[in-house]
């Protein structure tokens, strides 16, 4: 059985050319039009008061049960697991 090495090499060359050309074109595009390249999205940072070692905000919020403003400071003296969530 004979093997046509040219026919096997041909796509390999094309693939190599493709591998080189596409990143080159992309790099040229980025250099020419930087504003069109989306920035890598970063994870949104939590606000002040949510990091370890910080005091959690003592803002008041209406209690679901009776609407009375209640602050997280009202729970001082207890160890809490606080869950900020939504039912959806």
């Amino acid at each position: 059985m004979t093997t046509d090495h040219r026919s096997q090499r041909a796509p390999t060359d094309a693939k190599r050319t493709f591998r080189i050309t596409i990143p080159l074109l992309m790099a040229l595009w980025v250099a020419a039009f930087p504003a069109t390249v989306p920035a890598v999205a970063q994870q949104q940072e939590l606000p002040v008061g949510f990091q370890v070692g910080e005091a959690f905000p003592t803002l008041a919020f209406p209690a679901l049960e009776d609407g009375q403003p209640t602050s997280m400071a009202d729970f001082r003296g207890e160890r809490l697991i606080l869950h900020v969530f939504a039912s959806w």
Partner: protein
Amino acid sequence: MPGWHEATEELRDAGKIRMVGIIQEQHPDRAALFMQWKEMGWPLLVDSYNLLEVPYVPITLAIDERGIVRRQLRAIRDGQVIDDAFLEEAFAPAVPPGARARQADAASTPTASASPATTRPDLAALRAVAVREDTPDAWRDYGNAVAVWGGEDRLERAIEAFGAVVREEPEDGWALFRLGVALRARYDSEARGPDDFRNAVSNWSAALAIDPNQYIWRRRIQQYGPRLDKPYPFYDWVPVAREEVRARGQDPVPLIVEPRGSEFAEPAREFVTAGADALEPDPRGRVLRDDGDFITAEVVAVPPTVAPGEVARFHVTLRPILEKLAHWNNEVDETVIWVDPPRGWEVEAPLLSHPLPPNEVVSQETRIIEVEVKAPRLTFSGPARIPAYALYYVCEDVNGICMYRRQDLVLSVRVERDR
């Protein structure tokens, strides 16, 4: 969340920890039903305005007796929510459990807030300052305070305050979001204004355009918006919850605002149309018109602006004018709307109906029909007007004339090619 509830049961029973929740939801009463359904009895605080400024949920923290964050908890591992060190470590001198520390500890009060608000602020004084100084900061302080501590007029005052901030600083995304929250809340109340829902959506959209990474803001749009934009149906658990609560012999917590259409809708991967062969109910326009004399019609697009090829969900709200004693006649056909999209536009279904209430010959309830419309892929920027009409049987008065009437509608949405 039920997982956290179960995993903390022993610790709660032993008095080692307490669970507390803060809800980031437009309709917090739904969380009350959720808690009842899952038999979770711990206290919940309502932060619909997102005064905490959290970008996403859920967030779970372990907090010590002094209010200091000690852990950010991400997952329940092997049934354990918190390491033993948190439970055993002596972070601070013991304070009697449940002590009502209403006076804020200055040393542990956070920096980033216009309203530390552990004690009732003087709202009249805050408003006087806002009116006198007329600065965004002063109105912001007043708005944040009145959102929590305001009385019966809290929505009016919040709209006034956040509206003033937005007029001065139209790029303040938080003020735009909070203005939207107050407007939508007023829309759900008896004091609703004619454009409250539309303006709420408009403000939320503007906020999201400023900061597209605010997940909580995006959820408000998704909640009422098209199926293509939904990650999952938001409130499909409500009927299940009610059924299971009733099966336990309890009455489900009543909801102030019933979830509907978009809030139940399954997400979609592609825009699907159906009912193209439906017959137009009044092709020659011969049905007698109601020009808003008996039924008021309100049409809101969510989102209010779409790019070519994008979908808007229209909420068509029909309300009998109570002052005129107008009411629906339910002995005949359902209320329907017919949508006649212009060339190139697609409608999910041209003919949509609202079911009649069972066992009621007449009624005065609000009827909402939602329909999704897709913009053409090739179109110009600018306002688009999609003709539609509603057909219904309405009675003019008690024992008055009942007529089949038509009200012509326009579904308006803006197309922006560069959106």
